[in-house]
């Protein structure tokens, strides 16, 4: 589909119509910060947000999700798959890249039906960043803009005060955009403005400056296993897992059973977990395979920069900067750590 131009008012009218017909999740204000949530009206949608507290991955891998329902005495399990279509409004490009990476993880080897069912039910509207967050460094990771990414359904870019450029890439996206009344084809000037937004974002989404190419990370890490930075930084780590939990590319989970009051039926659920938590690698009997803070701390950076890369070829940090802001101890900045490793080994 070609690029079209739509006034904000028309966009709002469409959103107000859409929320009547479909489940829509969009970015809204939450306690002076932003979060994705069920959208009830266009007026609540904040496309000018800087960053959401949690990434939109929660719609594909929810914080807590029922995997199956069981009967304890019959020993029977019945799968639970969330099969409801929804529209996700306002995903930033870096977060979209993270979703794409998770897609790869959850479809390789044993494909995960729970994730994939939610994923296939989603129509994703990516929106270019309007306000850079305090710690974003997507531009360093090549995720500042979605122009060269694949897989998104719709891309929304604010090209003037109350005017958006909208482009659909998939059938789902085309159908969705087709419902917007009052769009017109984009002219060369509009496209130029859109490119300007991208250029600007590739420039400004760089609150921290990574002094290397992301592609160099696997090699850099391969030689940094014994670097002092791990011990140094980890000394201040609370093992609180915040850096894991806010990360759009983290996907570790735990599984637990919950019984109902009949003490017979219940649910098997999965919950987010984090490799920074103390007991993450502990086995029955108490042996902990990653018992030291530094070992856990290092593992997170290796997962971002090497282990996932070894698996899928992706650098699993998209530069959203959430871990930097979320870490109370102020030690979770990947850019700072990677730059430190550079200094020492170059």
């Amino acid at each position, binding site marked *: 589909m070609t690029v079209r131009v739509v006034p904000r008012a028309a966009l709002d009218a469409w959103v107000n119509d859409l929320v009547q017909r479909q489940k829509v999740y969009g970015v809204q204000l*939450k*306690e*002076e*910060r932003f*979060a994705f949530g069920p959208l009830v009206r266009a007026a609540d949608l904040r496309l000018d947000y800087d960053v959401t*507290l*949690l990434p939109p991955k929660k719609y594909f891998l929810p*914080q*807590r999700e029922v995997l199956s329902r069981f009967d*304890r005495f019959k020993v029977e399990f019945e799968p639970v798959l969330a099969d409801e279509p929804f529209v996700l409004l306002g995903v930033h490009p870096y977060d979209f890249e993270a979703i794409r990476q998770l897609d790869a993880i959850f479809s390789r080897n044993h494909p995960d039906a729970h994730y994939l069912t939610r994923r296939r039910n989603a129509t994703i509207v990516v929106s270019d960043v309007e306000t850079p967050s305090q710690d974003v460094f997507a531009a360093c990771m090549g995720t500042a803009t979605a122009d060269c990414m694949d897989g998104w359904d719709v891309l929304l870019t604010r090209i003037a005060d109350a005017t958006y450029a909208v482009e659909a890439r998939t059938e789902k996206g085309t159908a969705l955009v087709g419902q917007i009344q009052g769009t017109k084809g984009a002219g060369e000037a509009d496209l130029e403005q859109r490119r300007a937004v991208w250029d600007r974002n590739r420039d400004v989404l760089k609150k921290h400056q990574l002094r290397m190419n992301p592609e160099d990370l696997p090699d850099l890490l391969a030689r940094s296993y014994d670097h002092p930075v791990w011990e140094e930084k980890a*000394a*201040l*780590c*609370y*093992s*609180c*897992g*915040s850096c894991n*939990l*806010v990360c759009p590319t983290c996907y570790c989970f735990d599984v637990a059973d*919950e*019984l*109902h*009051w009949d*003490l017979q039926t219940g649910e098997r659920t999965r*919950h*987010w977990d*984090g490799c920074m*938590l*103390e*007991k993450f690698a502990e086995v029955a009997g108490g042996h902990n395979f990653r018992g030291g*803070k530094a070992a856990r701390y290092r593992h997170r950076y290796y997962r971002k920069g090497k282990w996932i890369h070894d698996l899928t070829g992706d650098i699993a940090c998209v530069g959203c900067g959430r871990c930097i*802001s*979320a870490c*109370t*101890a*102020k030690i979770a900045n990947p850019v700072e750590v990677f730059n430190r490793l550079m200094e020492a080994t170059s």
Partner: protein
Amino acid sequence: MRKPRIGIFDFACCEGCQLQIVNLEEEILDLLGVVTPVEWREAMSDQAEKGESFDIALVEGSITREEDAERLREIRARAKFLIALGACATIGGVNKLKNNFGMNDVKETVYGEAADMPHLETMPTKALHEVVQVDYMVHGCPIEAAELAHVVRTLLAGKTPTLPAYPVCVECKLKENACRFEFGEICLGPITRAGCGARCPSEGSWCFGCRGLVDDPNTQAAREVMAHYGKTIDDLRGKMLLFNSK
């Protein structure tokens, strides 16, 4: 199958934890479907026979007098599982604030001239496990009704429930809250054991540590973090005293 017998007991506390059992609302009927309450002074006139045993004793409150310690030992002897209910029972909670002062001082402050009377004798506050063996702790001030329900159901299914080892920040992140530190407040979340679903941060307040500290709180981090946010370690200590006095 015989329904497990349950007894509910209280010591020095606000009885808010027992209230959470009532606050199960309709679910209390479910609870009564799977256990037989044999003693619950706050809600029932029936009392178990002296020395009668029960499967689960839920005990709230702190121990502040020798006579209470004695009664607790007696309850322990009669109970297969003894579950400590709420901060007063699990860590001493606000009752331990008292331990920061001399016992005579607290008595005189409250009772003035009458402070010498023998029945006012008080000893430094103790959590239950400092007096008897406790099989399981349901933390919180007050406890979360849902957590208690979970613990009871888990036990009845023949499984020992496990306490979260991670700090409140985990649940705070899952709830998608903005961090209180960003608002210039001191939050005990990073060093406090989770399980409450980050109640207080989710309600716009700092965590005051009612579930006790995690096993290995990073005190060095706490120091530097306070400095980073322009606070002192004394500010932090002041907060910690509320529920985690020694």
